[in-house]
């Protein structure tokens, strides 16, 4: 009731613009939470202004912090063990607003499936308009996916860097052992890899490992 009255202007008529939604992000992964927060701030799709808070997972002081923020929508990663803590809090909450898990809303199973696949779950205050929630959830799904892609690209970049280092080391070994120049050493590596139907980086890794083994044998 308190909230409904807040939405009335002084003369008692209903305001045209809905009040800002308070969105809370709970995620142990700070980078993902930041990406989601930025997305929500930038997105016109989410509608009227969003107040976005971001808190890490620490079961002990989660409750007072959430109570202070008093969110309308809570976005939390699906794997977060704090979800049970949250649900208890909502159960005993005597506040006017009681968020419930928004899954299993069969009317929009596609969004729900997408959310589960992306790894995001949401708690929404009962009675909140579906289309506003959907916009926020859709955005969260796309941000979670973007984060996944980022992670993948990062790990690919890391392994590419590692491959290059290995190839450099292998090249140095071949140059030394065979008395070849850099170009010839690389050509030999590439040809051998092709003949054996292996990635050049894999051949380099084997070569570096073997050289290390032989070096260790020499020094004994």
């Amino acid at each position, binding site marked *: 009731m308190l909230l409904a009255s807040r939405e009335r202007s002084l003369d008692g008529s209903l305001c045209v613009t809905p009040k800002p939604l308070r969105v809370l992000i709970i995620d142990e992964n700070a980078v993902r939470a930041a990406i989601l927060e930025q997305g929500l701030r930038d997105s016109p799709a989410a509608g009227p202004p969003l107040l976005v808070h971001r808190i890490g997972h620490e079961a002990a002081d989660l409750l007072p912090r959430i109570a202070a923020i008093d969110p309308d929508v809570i976005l939390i990663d699906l794997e977060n063990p704090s979800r*049970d*803590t*949250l649900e*208890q809090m909502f*159960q005993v909450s005597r506040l006017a607003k*009681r968020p419930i898990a928004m*899954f299993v809303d069969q009317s929009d199973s596609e969004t729900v499936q997408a959310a589960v696949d992306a790894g995001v779950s949401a708690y929404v205050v009962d009675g909140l*308009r579906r289309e506003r929630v959907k916009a926020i959830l859709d955005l969260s799904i796309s941000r979670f996916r973007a984060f996944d892609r980022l992670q993948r690209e990062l790990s690919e970049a890391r392994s590419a860097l590692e491959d290059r280092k290995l190839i450099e080391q292998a090249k140095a070994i071949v140059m030394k052992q065979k008395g070849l120049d850099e170009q010839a050493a690389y050509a030999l590596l590439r040809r051998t890899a092709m003949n054996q139907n292996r990635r050049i980086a894999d051949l380099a890794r084997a070569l570096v490992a073997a050289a290390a083994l032989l070096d260790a044998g020499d020094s004994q």
Partner: protein
Amino acid sequence: MTRRIVAGFVPLVDAAVLVAAAELGFAREHGIELVLRKEPSWASLRDHLNLGYLDCAHALAPMPIASTIGVGQVRAECVVPFVLGRGGNAITLSTPLFEAMCDLAGASLPAEPRATAAALARVVRKRREPLTLGMVFPFSTHNFDLRYWLASAGIHPDQDVRIVAIPPPLMVESLAAGHVDGFCVGEPWNSLAVVRNLGHVVATKSQLLPRGVEKVLAVPPGLARDADTLGPLLRALEAAAAWADERANAAELARLLSAPDYLGMPASSLKDTLLGRLPLGGGEWLDDPDFLFFHGHAANVPQTGEALWLYAQMLRWGQLPPGDASREIAARVFRPDLYALHVGAPALAPPAQPFDGERFDPAHLDAYVARTRIHTPFVAATHIGNG
């Protein structure tokens, strides 16, 4: 033809029947390929079950009832054809709190629920800051056990103390950090707190509600109707439960459960739990073969009266409004008929009675709840209206 069944579980000792069925060939012998999927929280397990990512799940006994009524979440129908475990919970209080209780009582306290609850009540009355007590989920036997025990000594769980839900693996750390003053949780978490001198066990489930239902197999309506799949699955679980309950198999079961895919902790403490040995603190030990069990005494039969007892606790603590419709729904969630159809109809044990002798008659459920001196009224959430 082999049928593939994906079952969700939360890493706890009472996932034993599912683990034994999957690992020791009981499922395969019945033409079932049982795939187990570990879940990080009860909320996650429930969502994955309701959305069809899981075919069935290891669930807290009140969860399928809450889910079918649609309290705390959107309604999703679920039935229980099989009980996976009985007992296994205990209430542990921090060592400083336990010592304060002993001081006020002027004596050392035995782990006996009446004595310890009365001693806690004296401490609660003297304190200014309310104590914080942990349990695992709003719709859990742990929540109801803890509340029942507190209320038996005149402590109001929603006014005199603060109750919070904490995932079991974080429970002992929360006690060590002083975030909670005690908790009600399943094993091995009570033992771990005691062994680290962080707390004392003050009551066990086998004292509070002997042979009380703890974890159940939650099944969506589709699988419940599919007799060709549910039948072999239940018979496999029955065989696995009989194996898991044998004391001679405790060492092997503890070893299975200790694997990283399941509980990921030392087999020795798990074996003690399986044998009904629980350290209580101060060098005392509980030795009770019925502390946690998986088979015998018709353990695997879900009884309607038990579902209604859980429903009565939900009413008592204001988790839902009273009503004939929800009571009728709750009465249909536990399905002894499905057990009888697929496994057999054993002689039922008389219903368990709680430690305070307060008898529960499902036929007079509302009167039972009304009679409780301490309870919490249901408060409906106000809708926002204009989102």
